[in-house]
């Protein structure tokens, strides 16, 4: 349950420890034997300086890399992502290498929204058109009735008109 940053520091410390253990004072004096025999204290001081300088340089390099790439924040966010995804046991999705294919899932949610919105629009319009259609049918019936009424009145008038003509013919006679 160590964070990645702590793990990183631990690894670097271990690396340094082992590296320094490998380049022990013993080994150092073996290599610089004559100088060591001439100047043992000086050799000790040089060796100590060698070790501390090496450790300081390497640790500074790690800090610089952390600084430069904002590595701590990035690793901490990776810790969070891993923590959130830990229930998910089976291997997760990975890019297929075919962008068009991978994009399908990215775009799909928005197409689904679009489809649902269109469905709603179509249903709403269909319902409205249903009402309009009923109104049109009712209107047609009403027009028909009015036409029949007008026709009836017209025929009545025409009959009247015929009688009128008869009358006129009678009167004229």
């Amino acid at each position, binding site marked *: 349950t160590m964070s990645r940053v702590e793990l990183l520091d631990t690894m670097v410390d271990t690396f340094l420890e082992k590296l320094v253990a490998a380049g022990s004072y013993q080994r150092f004096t073996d290599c610089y034997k004559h100088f060591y025999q001439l100047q043992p204290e000086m050799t000790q001081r040089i060796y100590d300086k060698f070790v501390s300088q090496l450790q300081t340089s390497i640790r500074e390099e790690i800090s610089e890399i952390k600084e430069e790439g904002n590595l701590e924040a990035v690793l901490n966010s990776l810790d969070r992502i891993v923590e959130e995804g830990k229930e998910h046991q089976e291997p997760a999705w990975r*890019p297929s290498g075919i*962008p068009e294919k*991978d994009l399908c899932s990215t775009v799909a949610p*928005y197409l689904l*929204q679009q489809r649902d919105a*269109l469905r709603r629009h179509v249903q709403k319009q269909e319902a409205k058109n249903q009402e309009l259609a009923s109104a049109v049918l009712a209107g047609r019936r009403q027009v028909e009735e009015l036409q029949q009424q007008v026709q009836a009145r017209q025929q009545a008038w025409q009959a009247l008109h015929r009688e009128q003509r008869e009358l006129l013919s009678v009167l004229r006679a």
Partner: protein
Amino acid sequence: FDEIIVDIATKRKWYPRKILECVIRTLKAQLE
């Protein structure tokens, strides 16, 4: 090789978002 990997990975990270922005704009325009 390394540059290619980083380039592709960067595109994989950002392009879907960019494409999505265009897709969303297009869908909105279509709806309007």
